[in-house]
């Protein structure tokens, strides 16, 4: 039921590979903590790889939005990579699909960050 997060660096961008569920409680808290930890270390270019996220609830959606605004407010960028159909549909229903910068290709996503 829980979510796993692993972390890698590519060309100045931190990729968080998420797998499992982002829901109220564990998943949402883990994501919040992971993003805060990166920001505290000065990593403000973040790509969330959601390819293995098979479920997200309204709390998880809210956490994605909060992470997006938190990173942006600190002068960084947070983008989403490889949405599953369910997550894609949820972001469309909630009109968030146009808010996030969403990519399907990792190399393209990495290249799209405007690092200062």
């Amino acid at each position, binding site marked *: *039921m829980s979510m796993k997060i692993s972390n890698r660096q590519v060309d100045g961008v931190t990729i968080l590979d998420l797998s499992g569920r982002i*829901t*109220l*409680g564990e998943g949402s808290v883990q994501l919040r903590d992971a993003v805060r930890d990166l920001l505290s270390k000065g990593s403000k270019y973040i790509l969330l790889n959601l390819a293995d996220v098979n479920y997200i*609830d*309204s*709390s998880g*959606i*809210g*956490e994605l*939005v*909060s992470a*997006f*605004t938190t990173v942006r407010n600190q002068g960084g960028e947070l983008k989403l990579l490889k949405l599953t159909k*369910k997550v894609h549909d*949820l972001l469309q*229903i*909630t*009109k*968030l699909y146009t*808010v996030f910068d969403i990519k399907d290709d990792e190399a393209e996503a990495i290249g799209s960050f405007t690092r200062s």
Partner: protein
Amino acid sequence: MVSRFSYTLDSSLDSVNKVEEAAEQLAQKSGLDEDRIFQITMAVREAAVNAVLHGNAYDPQKKIVASFENTGSSLIIRISDQGKGLDPTTLPDPLAPENLLNGSGRGIFLIRSFMDEVHFKLLHPGTELTLIKHLDSNQNRA
């Protein structure tokens, strides 16, 4: 096949997960496709989260009641709490531009998006949400 069952549960995340699993099983047994099973499961989870988090505020003295019914033509799920009561007319529109970047407030919207009917009833104290998915109309929909 008509079936009905219900649970009275503590105000906890474990209860949310139990209600979610029950909804998934009900939807699976009714023969719905994977997309509609997902919709029902998610809507019921959101209703359970509302009951536990916003209704009962994790109060160990308060319970939630979840009932599940397959009437043969519809799935009817009722989730009630013992909280202050929810007035759905006061909820902000999560799709409004000024609310789009809010970190919360999408649960009831998703429930309404995924179910055919959603009804609110004040219980004094508490709220009961009734979620209905019509089986026949869904089978015919693309």
